[in-house]
């Protein structure tokens, strides 16, 4: 089945130790998104890639970076995780072109714990 895959599902890191979360998709979608979702809150968009173009949200901390080496993969790098970065991180994809928007398909998420 075509889908959005996130690895690992659970990640534990230490305060200040860099961590990378992975997302891959078999949908061949051109847009990929990273969201942060804290307990009982709505997903908050961190950034997205439209093809190779990176779009950062204005309030996304510099501590968060992203890479998209090809259509299928996208990575979220947290350079120096703080306790406040503990959250569920959701990857999503969509097909967008010419101003039209299609639904976003979400991965299962990676739950990050910072010790």
């Amino acid at each position, binding site marked *: 089945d075509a889908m959005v895959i996130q690895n690992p599902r659970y990640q534990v890191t230490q305060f200040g130790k860099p961590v990378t979360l992975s997302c891959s998709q078999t949908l061949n979608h051109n*847009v990929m*998104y990273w969201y942060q979702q804290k307990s*009982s*809150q*709505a*997903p*908050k*968009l961190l950034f*997205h890639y*439209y093809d190779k173009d990176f779009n950062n949200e204005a309030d996304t901390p510099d501590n968060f970076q992203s890479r998209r080496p090809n259509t299928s993969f996208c990575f979220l790098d947290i350079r120096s995780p703080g306790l406040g970065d503990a959250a569920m991180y*959701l990857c*999503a994809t*969509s097909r*967008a072109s010419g101003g039209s*928007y299609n*639904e*976003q*398909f*979400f*991965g*299962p*998420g990676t739950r990050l714990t910072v010790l």
Partner: protein
Amino acid sequence: AQRVTQPEKLLSVFKGAPVELKCNYSYSGSPELFWYVQYSRQRLQLLLRHISRESIKGFTADLNKGETSFHLKKPFAQEEDSAMYYCALVGNYKLSFGAGTTVTVRA
């Protein structure tokens, strides 16, 4: 700026009773609105979008531009409808989510 408001954080109804989840939005352009649902231990998924005007799992939602609302309704709630529901608005390829409403359907 785009903004989505879901005033109810929690909603509890009995099985077979009607359920309505409120959603209001603000957006300067022509809005595209969605309802996403997250069942327990499952990924977030699209429930319905206003453009398609469909009824999915018995749910419907009508866009009211005058009231800037996109309320989600179901005439007879079922236990399997218990979930978190997010209203969302798209602008410039980005989704803005409301805070979400947790629905509990009791037997």
